[in-house]
């Protein structure tokens, strides 16, 4: 009964091999096996989205997936957003626009926002709202969250524009 299973999950670029119980949820694997507690457990019923991570670049709720289902796949969590000590543009924008109050929903919001901006560089207001349909902010701070995501989109555009300009000297 309940034999442990060997799985390998790549999290934020690093492969992790563990023997796990089949009933271990992905969020528990991330938090308890790997110690990455940035991913939160909120409702634990697939409503709130605090546990949102990117699985093979798509947002999913890690409380409603078994760790064994992620075997061989790539997961990105909020800890993977910062690069070389620099916050991701979405993190910067959340800070700048006061897009977090208690902060509990923030890791999930950030992952949904990152996925949106990776697949849609210039989202409309409605597209931003739809992208966080599965993320609940109990502080009801949605206005600033939406502003922050829009601002991050502008910032990413601006930076990539500069890089293109810099790479093409007149």
């Amino acid at each position, binding site marked *: *009964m*309940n*034999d442990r*299973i060997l799985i390998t999950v790549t999290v934020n670029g690093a492969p992790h091999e563990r023997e796990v*119980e*089949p*009933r*271990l*949820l992905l969020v*528990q694997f991330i938090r308890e096996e790997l110690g990455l507690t940035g991913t939160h457990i909120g409702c*634990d*019923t*697939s*409503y*709130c*989205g605090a546990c*949102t991570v990117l*699985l093979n670049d*798509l*947002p*999913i*709720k890690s409380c*409603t*997936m*078994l760790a*064994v*289902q992620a075997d061989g796949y790539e997961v990105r969590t909020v800890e993977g957003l910062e690069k070389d000590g620099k916050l991701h543009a979405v993190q910067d924008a959340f800070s700048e626009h006061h897009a977090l109050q208690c902060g509990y929903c923030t890791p999930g919001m950030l992952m*949904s926002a990152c*996925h949106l901006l990776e697949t849609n560089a210039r989202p409309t207001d409605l597209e931003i709202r*739809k*992208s966080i*349909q*599965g*993320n*609940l902010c109990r502080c009801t701070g949605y206005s600033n969250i939406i502003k922050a995501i829009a601002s991050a989109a502008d910032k990413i555009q601006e930076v990539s524009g500069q890089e293109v300009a810099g790479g093409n000297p007149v």
Partner: protein
Amino acid sequence: MYPAPFQYHRAKTVDEAVGLLAGIGEGARVLAGGQSLLAILKLRFDEPTDLVDIGRIANLDQIDDAGEVINIGALATHNRIGASAIAEAIPIVSDCANGIADNQVRNLGTIGGSVASGDPSCDWPTLLHTLDGEILCQGPDGARTLDINGFVEDLYQTALKPAEIITGLRFKKPAAGSGGAYCTFKRCAPAYPTIAVGVQLTIRNGQVDSSRIALGSAGLTPIRASAAEAELTGGSLGADEINKAAEAAVAAADPYDDRRGSAEFKRQLIATLTKRAIAIAQRRAGGETVKNSPEYY
């Protein structure tokens, strides 16, 4: 919340999955995207001895336009269906696929799982009733095709035999001059609909040639509202006919009081959503592009 302990098996082929299910017997459950099953297991409404994971079986997620018939593999996710050329061509499919829960759930949840769960709140069975769909299954005795009518026999009970799994769904492509709409009213995106209504109308020279109306979350199973269809077929969608169809849809439903609302509230929603879906279906049948998303409280 941890599910009760179980053994986990990952099937590589449909035959292997059927063999595992037949060998294990009653205690086995099928895991695809897990978006219905895991919630049930975490709440310990069910404690299977074994899970057979079919999620990685190759070529079971194809979305295929075969001319007259649309074939969708059991493992196609709601988001992949929602972004497909088929959803673009058949707006009622887009309504349904893109209206299910939220982005995260749509990335994992599958059409096969939605149908196999036998949950009257799941959207795909109601949509398949609206489009007169069929269910392709495979079990120890081979493959067979079941009509959506009668497939969900009772709450969480389907016509699937022991060790039989759904491999795909199919429906006829709506004819030229046909339009449909799937309208839902929900508490919030991740919630199941409080009420869902699907309508598909084929209109020729202003007259309704054929109509199909199905209701979701309106009883213990998805409900085909045949009497409501009869009010529309042969008519010209006059206000009186539409009102009678909405009344007949309410009469066909068997809603109950729960956290989503009282039975009376749900009856009013059925009437309103039936009229709304008829109106959108009529405009789409006329070639108009009409946006349609779930409505929230």
